[in-house]
């Protein structure tokens, strides 16, 4: 993963400065001294009660109300050198939108975000703000508690949507350039929005029957309600984006076929659709799922509502989820909601090394999820029908740090033990989907099966073909995919405009 702290571009610095120097901002800064702002407590995100919410798929977080949002925005000291913007992969003008919230100008705040981010209701929910914008927030340096930027983003996006007052920006006259985007996930949707706003004719090709990629098949309803995703996709369609679902690029048509049809620029955002397994005995027993399959059945196919929907999913007495990331948290909390008496995380390192967001871990704990750290499965045991009934695990201890800087788990000899489980979800990451690479001659690949790009321009080895998100990174995050997408869109726009026209 190439994740580096971004240096702000001169244009962006200038834009931020212009906002900072506006009279109303000056006045607002003066109105409440920094010392006072630092005393204000962070507004708590209201949540549904754990014992209730772990029985259904309703959203956990209820969102701030306008009073709480304004109070939270007041905590932002509107610093002259805002670090938060550099912490955001899509460079949202955070101080401007937060100060608009402080004034109660919620719609204007939403528009401000939408200048650089087409999907704020999603980002406000699923971004790991604590390791991005909020991590570098000056208020965090001062008080230890950053401004709740993510919660504010969610609030204004919801305010705009619920008010039914969604502003469609003015689209410049059509450029006549046809752009094909492969995959309607977070990266593809972002490129589509950015290029449609620049007047290009954009078509997204999506393999599944509903747009959203991981936002629809992976992230559960209780974290990201599908209605919100749908609203954001509808918004893109209002910008003129066409979406062709049930179209597998590489199979239904190749990139070369699409080029022959007149598409001039391409963005590959086909994601990390190839689940990793541990290659241990018993992994193909009935009752062992990849996280992708488990979550797809429940989220995309709505197996939680079986038999009203036709797709089934196993309901367990005791579900074990292998892994410590957000996908593992989503899976284990889903198993609880499907009625498991015990839902367990099995993670080979300690709590400290878990890659999942702190909020997800906290929510999981409140919902009664058990955590077994420093443990790894070694084999799965089935009954005579090939159905999983138990797993053998091994205790681990932490040794020297590995390449990722995290301490390497080392098996404790002779510590094997067997525990009864009737459902296992393997959530140990995924690899880039091979369909496009296999069917696109000349596309340069990296050693992990990822598409190789020039990280400055997101260009692949093929003329006019760009890529971003998990297809270049392996398993990463929604917002990193969107960051790649924004950079790619800017470069694709340049490419299209520089191309000689008849």
């Amino acid at each position, binding site marked *: 993963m190439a994740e580096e702290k971004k240096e702000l571009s001169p244009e962006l610095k200038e834009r931020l400065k212009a906002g900072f120097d506006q009279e109303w901002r000056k006045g607002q800064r003066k109105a409440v001294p920094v010392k006072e702002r630092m005393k204000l407590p962070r507004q708590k995100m209201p949540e549904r009660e754990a014992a209730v919410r772990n029985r259904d798929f309703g959203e956990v977080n209820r969102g701030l109300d306008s009073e709480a949002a304004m109070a939270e925005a007041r905590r932002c000291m509107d610093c002259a050198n805002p670090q938060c913007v550099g912490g955001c992969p899509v460079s949202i003008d955070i101080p401007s939108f937060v100060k608009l919230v402080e004034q109660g100008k919620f719609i204007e705040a939403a528009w401000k975000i939408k200048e650089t981010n087409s999907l704020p209701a999603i980002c406000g929910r699923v971004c790991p703000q604590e390791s991005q914008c909020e991590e570098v927030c000056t208020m965090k340096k001062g008080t230890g508690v950053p401004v709740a930027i993510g919660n504010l983003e969610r609030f204004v996006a919801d305010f705009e949507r619920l008010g039914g007052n969604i502003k469609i920006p003015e689209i410049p006259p059509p450029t006549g350039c046809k752009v094909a985007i492969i995959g309607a996930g977070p990266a593809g949707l972002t490129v589509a929005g950015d290029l449609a706003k620049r007047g290009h004719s954009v078509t997204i090709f999506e*393999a*599944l*029957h509903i747009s959203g990629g991981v936002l629809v*098949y992976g992230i559960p309803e209780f974290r990201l309600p599908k209605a919100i995703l749908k609203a954001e996709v509808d918004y893109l369609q209002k910008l003129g984006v066409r979406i062709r679902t*049930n*179209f*597998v690029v590489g*199979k*239904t*048509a190749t990139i070369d076929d699409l080029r022959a049809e007149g598409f001039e620029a391409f963005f590959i955002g086909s994601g990390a*659709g*190839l*689940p990793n*397994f541990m*290659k241990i005995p018993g*992994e*193909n027993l*009935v009752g062992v*799922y*990849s996280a*992708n*399959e488990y979550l*797809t*059945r429940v989220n995309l*196919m*709505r197996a939680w509502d*079986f*038999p*009203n*929907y*036709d*797709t*089934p999913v196993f309901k367990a007495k005791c579900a074990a989820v292998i892994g410590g990331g957000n996908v593992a948290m989503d899976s284990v909390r889903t198993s609880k909601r499907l009625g498991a008496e015990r839902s367990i995380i099995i993670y080979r390192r300690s709590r400290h090394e878990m890659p999942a967001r702190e909020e997800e871990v906290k929510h999981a704990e409140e919902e009664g999820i058990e955590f077994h750290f420093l443990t790894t499965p070694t084999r799965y045991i089935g009954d005579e*029908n*090939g*159905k999983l009934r138990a797993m053998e695990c091994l205790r681990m201890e932490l040794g020297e740090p590995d390449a990722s800087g995290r301490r390497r788990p080392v098996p404790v000899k002779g510590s094997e033990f067997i525990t009864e489980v009737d459902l296992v979800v393997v959530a140990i990451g995924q690899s880039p*989907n*091979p*369909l496009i690479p296999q069917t696109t001659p000349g596309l340069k690949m990296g050693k992990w099966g990822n598409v190789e790009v020039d990280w400055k321009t997101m260009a692949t080895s093929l003329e006019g073909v760009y890529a971003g998100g998990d297809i270049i990174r392996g398993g990463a995050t929604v917002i990193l995919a969107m960051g790649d997408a924004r950079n790619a869109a800017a470069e694709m726009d340049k490419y299209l405009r520089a191309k000689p026209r008849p």
Partner: protein
Amino acid sequence: MAKVLDRRRLVPNLHLIEIHAPEVAKKCRPGQFVIIMPDERGERIPLSIADWDAAKGSVTSVFLLVGTSTHKLSLLKTGDEVPVFVGPLGRESEIRNFGTVVLAGGCFGIGAIYPLARALKAAGNRVITVIDVKAKYLIYWGEKLRAVSDKMIIASRDQALNSKEYIPAKIAEVLHSENPVNRVVAIGCTYLMYACAMATKPLGIKTIVNLNPIMVDGTGMCGACRCTVGGQTKFACVDGPDLDGHEIDWMELFKRRKSYFDDEIQSLCDWEKNQLP
């Protein structure tokens, strides 16, 4: 949405469905499959492609009535629409001049071997088709298959056909009378493919089976269709569906195929109760 051009009962329990899908039709190759979803609440299920017409823009599959999804498909009429029809998926079958090829088909596989027979015949092979039917009245596409085969053999338990054998016995006969047979391909229910692979294994004749395990997305994303081939886990949707019949862990495949047996029965019972009050 994809339009239904035709849906017909071929023989009891076996139906043909022809869908308007010009882009899919342009790309179809023998051995591939499509994923179809009968309605908005339906399951995504894989169907082997039995024929296509690029000029007309249509793709045809044959399916057996098994569970809720196939029962729903069987009620579709010309002009209806299905929300999902995506493909062609999976790798295409290897087509070249092998010499003599035996194509074994049963159930929906009688339809699915048709494009394979056509392509192998065109590539210069001697094509022997062996189809398995319980009784004479279950034969469909006989003429169509005969037209692209050098020889067609029927395995049946029907006295009217003067036969009382299951398909592996017929294959064994062919392997003796047609020496050498260079390749066998079997398409049909898991048991038929297994039986064919077992019949050819002692003779070491390369036997390809076109697997149809449970799938969800059909593009490699979920891993529902994984099976063990030569000791390694393969995804039938992207590594197959053509796989080596002598290398497959058949017992594992049978068990995985039955993963949702109880759920499937419950689902079908609920559906029937609403359909047939």
